[in-house]
């Protein structure tokens, strides 16, 4: 085994394998479907289910209240 063969064996193959792994991991973010986060360019989108199922066990606890919102949280990623 000469120096060139040894270089290809111990450097070329690992580098090629590392490059393959890098491409395999990051390829999804290069596609349009994988980029729907930081550089989101779409318009506003709202989807909603059908109205809530009527539940007779739930009684209006404060009929006079005009507040619709009962809770929730804010977060950031």
């Amino acid at each position, binding site marked *: 085994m000469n120096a060139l063969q040894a270089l290809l064996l111990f450097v070329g193959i690992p580098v090629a394998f590392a490059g393959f792994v890098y491409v395999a991991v990051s390829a999804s973010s290069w596609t349009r479907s994988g980029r729907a986060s930081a550089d989101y360019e779409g318009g*506003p989108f709202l989807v909603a289910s059908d109205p809530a199922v009527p539940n007779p066990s739930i009684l209006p606890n404060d009929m006079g209240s005009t507040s619709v919102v009962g809770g*929730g949280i804010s*977060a950031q990623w």
Partner: protein
Amino acid sequence: MPSGELVPGYGGASEPVGALSESQRAVLDRVVQRARSICGYCFGVYVGPLPEGRASAIAQHAMLPDPTSAVLVAVDPSTRIIEIVTGRTVAVDLDDRACELAALAMKSSFAADDLVGGLRDGVTLLAEHARAPKVMHLSDPD
């Protein structure tokens, strides 16, 4: 309707949308319908700008049918904001701690650029938590 271009289609997706594909919209539509079948409450998912933060999310929540019994998960991908708004009736079964847990689940998926997967997991988690315990003589026999 803030911009006049968003037409809510209850039981279906609204138009227009750029970054979400047809299949992704179909997934989100199925997710909210399944969440409703789990707990009985109305669920909504909003993806888009939230210029006034929580106030914008509350405005979107008010557009859902019967907002007191509705849950909205609003996400602004450009500013990386998650807002979960629960109606007054829903808040009885779905407390803020459960919302935090769902937001945590969504954050991990969003960080990996999986917007739809995060919304799917978050909404499903919220629906599971919002499922009220069965009440004798009121719950349908399964």
